[in-house]
């Protein structure tokens, strides 16, 4: 069993039983690899999970908190093999996470992302409308998460057109020009959730553009929209009303697991691809929550080889909605994000891992 076996079959095609079996083998191998090659990972795991892990199911796999990448240098390669260092967008006053990639892991990430996105978009590159500004690329040495998100999806597009000018102001002429040029055609639209709402949904047009063949992908979180009482259902409904836009795909991913993207489908829930998974855990005792019970989201991915990011406890709260029975035939687990965990909810986590 190799990760390529899970990448080279159509994504979202494995049912949970098949996937559990394949992932268990891969994750056991990855855990042992990181214990052998990262002293910091071994220390954290041993402290919390003991020296010997009994791998009966994926749920037995040790996990570390995403915040560990801020406090520790976590890598499983020699310094000379570092190809790229990704950093998280830490808010002011916080330390940033550092994720160390070698060439192999970077390649796996881009192949994996391509398999997921092309499952939705298809193999042909489509005219691409980006709801952002080119100015996000100005500091080439340290891209923001936004810049990295756009660049990750750029290979799926052509005639890349940016709706905001260099000063991050909407350029209506550019937006209208693009929609006029490709009215009714297959196009690819990408932007951060809040910006799509602000600069596409709320833009004023003299005519109704037909985006029934367009594919919209968006990410970045709902916080700003929830403050404005816009949830996912409203977001989808309003875009359908305004543009007849129905192919809408939100996704959930993080810099600590680039390439492992959890993708929404027509039912509005996020789905785990073949080579990744989610487990919802009780924030107090970390036991596994059943369908319908909210908890901290643990993300599992078979991609991280150069750094121990294969099993992470996030600071997001989510709820499992079902397994193998999603509308549209996508197999495996599907879930919903409820928001960021409150500080109090993370206290148990920090007590456990930062002794």
């Amino acid at each position, binding site marked *: 069993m190799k990760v390529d076996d899970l990448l080279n079959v159509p994504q979202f095609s494995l049912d949970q039983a098949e996937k559990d079996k394949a992932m268990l083998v891969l994750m056991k191998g990855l855990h042992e690899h990181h214990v052998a090659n990262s002293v910091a990972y071994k220390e954290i795991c041993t402290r919390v999970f003991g020296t010997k892990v009994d791998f009966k199911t994926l749920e037995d796999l040790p996990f570390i908190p995403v915040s560990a990448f801020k406090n520790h240098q976590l890598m499983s390669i020699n310094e000379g093999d570092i*190809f*790229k260092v990704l950093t998280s967008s830490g808010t002011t006053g916080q330390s940033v996470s550092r994720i160390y990639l070698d060439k192999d892991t970077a390649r796996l990430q881009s192949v994996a992302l391509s398999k997921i996105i092309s499952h939705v978009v298809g*193999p*042909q*590159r489509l005219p691409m409308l980006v709801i952002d500004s080119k100015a996000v690329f100005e500091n*080439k040495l340290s891209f923001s998460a936004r810049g990295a998100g756009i660049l990750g999806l750029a*290979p*799926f597009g*052509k005639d890349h057109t940016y709706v905001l000018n260099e000063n991050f102001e909407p350029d209506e002429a550019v937006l209208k020009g693009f929609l006029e040029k490709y009215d009714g055609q297959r196009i690819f639209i990408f932007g951060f959730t809040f910006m799509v709402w602000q600069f596409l949904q709320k833009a004023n047009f003299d005519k109704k553009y037909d985006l029934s063949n367009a594919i919209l992908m968006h990410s970045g979180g709902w916080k700003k929209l929830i403050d404005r009482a816009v949830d996912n259902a409203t977001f989808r409904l309003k875009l359908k009303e305004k543009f007849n836009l129905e192919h809408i795909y939100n996704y959930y991913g993080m810099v600590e697991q680039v390439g492992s993207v959890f993708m929404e489908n027509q039912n509005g829930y996020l789905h785990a691809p073949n080579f990744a998974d989610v487990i919802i855990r009780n924030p107090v005792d970390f036991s596994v929550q059943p369908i319908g019970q909210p908890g901290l989201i643990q993300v599992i991915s078979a991609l991280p080889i150069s750094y121990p990011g294969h099993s992470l406890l996030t600071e997001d709260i989510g709820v499992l909605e079902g397994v193998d029975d999603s509308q549209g035939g996508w197999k495996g687990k599907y879930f919903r994000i409820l928001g960021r965990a409150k500080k109090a909810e993370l206290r148990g986590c920090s007590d456990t891992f930062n002794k």
Partner: protein
Amino acid sequence: MENNQKLINSFQEALGLDTSSIVDSLTYQSVPEWDSISHMILISQLEEDFNVSLETDDVIDMSSFAKAREILAKHGVSF
């Protein structure tokens, strides 16, 4: 040979590299000029110069100058 020179010119124009550094062993992200932003400029340049339409997999697979030649050959460009 003619198309090889044309390919060197495309790389030079899109990436702003000196022609002497545009050799088979030149790989993506090995020089500051060939990063993920200029990569998309390079792709557009190749599509224009060779009148081909490259797919997403081609964009992702184009990891070196030699690989670019291979991918263009797949699209009917002879070297």
